[in-house]
């Protein structure tokens, strides 16, 4: 179960050589970025770049602030009354915590897939069309097209194309999660945030989601939170390791898993704590 051994298989799967990712243009960038719940600082002065078109994994023990940081990127934390952010986080060069930022546009450009599949209790079609409809697309043909292409992108089209009008709650967990992915893709985002998207799924469904992430690499900037180090090793180009709200180490996945620079990272990936 050593992560290092797993790594060899994973990197061959990902099929990319070690690169210097700092040369890639940053899509999302944080500077001394902190998040507070009341007085509790859940994310502490994080500085990092999420490069465009890459898959970045965030790992770390539970409660270390991964979800909090991830949800800060599309400002989902705004829903929590006690939550405040400090520092700056830029997306495409704009500080998204500025006052005049349109959160709705931000969220349309930053898609999100949650831990538990959260399809609406509506038909499959209406689930996918939800986002486009919000953007004012009413034409049936356009909607049909978006629904079909999103479902195909999420590799679920063949399974559901004959029952688009049935209630989405009737699908299996894995299918629901891919539907959620398709739903997020239908808004045509630039970034996809995934918060432990496979933790509620069985191994087979997990593999499917991981394959999908592989296919979407390059088209979207993907940031995925996972507590599963093998998964991080398998799917990501870059990995961030967080501990107690602090970003301990951030670098190419291969390097982080084989030659971690920090002692804490090494302890964590070799399973000595957490």
């Amino acid at each position, binding site marked *: 179960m050593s992560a290092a051994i797993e790594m060899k298989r994973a990197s061959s799967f990902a099929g990319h050589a070690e690169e210097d990712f700092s040369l890639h243009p940053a899509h999302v960038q944080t500077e001394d970025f902190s998040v507070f719940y009341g007085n509790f600082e859940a994310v502490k002065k994080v500085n990092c770049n999420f490069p465009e078109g890459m898959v970045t994994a965030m790992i770390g023990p539970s409660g270390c602030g991964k979800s909090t940081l991830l949800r800060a990127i599309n400002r989902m934390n705004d829903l929590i009354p006690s939550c405040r952010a400090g520092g700056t986080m830029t997306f495409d060069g704009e500080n998204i915590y500025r006052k005049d930022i349109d959160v709705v546009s931000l969220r349309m450009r930053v898609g999100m897939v949650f831990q538990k599949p*959260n399809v609406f209790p509506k038909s499959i079609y209406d689930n996918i069309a*939800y986002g486009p409809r919000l953007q004012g697309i009413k034409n049936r043909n356009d909607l049909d097209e978006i629904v079909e292409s999103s479902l195909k992108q999420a590799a679920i089209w063949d399974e559901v194309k004959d029952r688009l009008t049935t209630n989405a709650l009737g699908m299996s967990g894995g299918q629901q999660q891919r539907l959620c992915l398709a739903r997020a893709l239908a808004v045509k985002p630039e970034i996809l945030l995934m918060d432990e998207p496979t933790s509620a799924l069985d191994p087979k469904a997990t593999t499917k989601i991981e394959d999908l992430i592989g296919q979407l690499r390059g088209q979207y900037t993907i940031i995925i939170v996972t507590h599963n180090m093998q998964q991080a090793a398998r799917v990501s180009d870059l990995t961030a390791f967080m501990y107690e709200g602090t970003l301990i180490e951030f670098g190419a996945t291969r390097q982080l898993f084989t030659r971690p620079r920090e002692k804490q990272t090494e302890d964590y990936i070799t399973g000595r704590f957490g």
Partner: protein
Amino acid sequence: MRLETRRLLDRAFSSLGLIAIGVMALALVVILTPIIVRGSGAFIFRSTIEHRKVMFDQWDRGNAGRLETAKAEVAAARQPVYDMLAAFNTELDAMPRADRKPYKQSLRDLEKALAGLLGPVPGERTPVLIRQQYGATRWDRTQIKLDDVLTTEEWDYSDPTALGKLVRTPRVEQFRGTKLEPLFPYVEQNIKAMMQPRWTCYWQFLFDTSKDSHIFGGIGPEVLGTIYLTLGAMFFAIPMGVIAAIYLCEYAREGRVISFLRICISTLAGVPSIVFGLFGLAFFLNTIHISDSKSVLAGALTLSLLVLPTVIRASEEAILAVPRAYKEAAMSLGAGRWRTVMTVILPAALPGILTGVVISMGRAAGETAPIIFTAAVSVGRPLLPLEALSQPTPALSWNIYNLCTEHEAVDEIRHVQYGMVFTLVAVVLLLNVFAIIMRARISKKLRG
């Protein structure tokens, strides 16, 4: 204490609880049984020829030819009674004055009792009041009226220490040895031929207007009035209640203002219903003069205040039961707060809200105290929807009270009272059963 005693106490304790629940169920059965059994008697009962006459004369129902034949048969059966009376009158005329006197009052009483049973004497001038134009219309009333003819009742107060005693004597005693003596056995034996009882389903009871202050006819105006009041109350209460619930659950930040509003809501829920009635009178009618007199509108507004807390609470509960995940999903797709509420939260909460609404409807339909001063009158015709803005209406709940306390012939119209209670209870219970089933389905859905 011994272990056995402790065990016994334990078992006794459990059975105490079971008894309490049994008593509750028993109370429910005891209260509902007479209402259901006798209430359905307003719809399905043995009607007499008199009922058919009423139906034909007042509502044009029934077959004229068959009714005429029946009338002829009945008249033939009744003729001996009138013949005997006539014979007795001749007999009286022949008597000396002093002998005649004691019979006079008895004869008048008898004639009155007979009119109650059979209706007016054929050939005489038709009385003005409809109730005097017909005899007993129902077989159960016939039995009572027959008893009136056959026996006299008198209260005996001779013993001052005890309550009065009822003394019943056969009326025939008063007419021993006269030509009237055979009348009593004749009536008793031929009552069926004279009344022609037959099982009837008078379903129009629900829709007919009443004739001669509820002695004949149905409860149509009351049913309609109750429907107006209930729907009117919900028309105001649903939007207000649901909006308040949305605000409290989705927009308000917990704090002083909100906890204050919550205290207001629970206080509103605790206000006695009669106080709502007075408020409706003082505010809607006497202050802002929403209508010149009592009106359905004023009553509906008053009722809507009464059910508002229930609607708010039920809606709040339903909204809070919607999984947070739905909200987050909608938000992450770029929906604003309002869009999230309208497209995701409300649809998911709808069944729960509906459950609360249905229960409140039952409450609004059954409440009496708030409409006494604001909307209800005892007798009225069915209103058109627009008239409801300015006109008062009879309503089931109010008329139940009115008919069994203030009516001039309370005992004559028991069946109407029971019919009304039955209708009201049936409506309320159906609404509640609907809500209970709906809630069971929701909770099943949430669980699995």
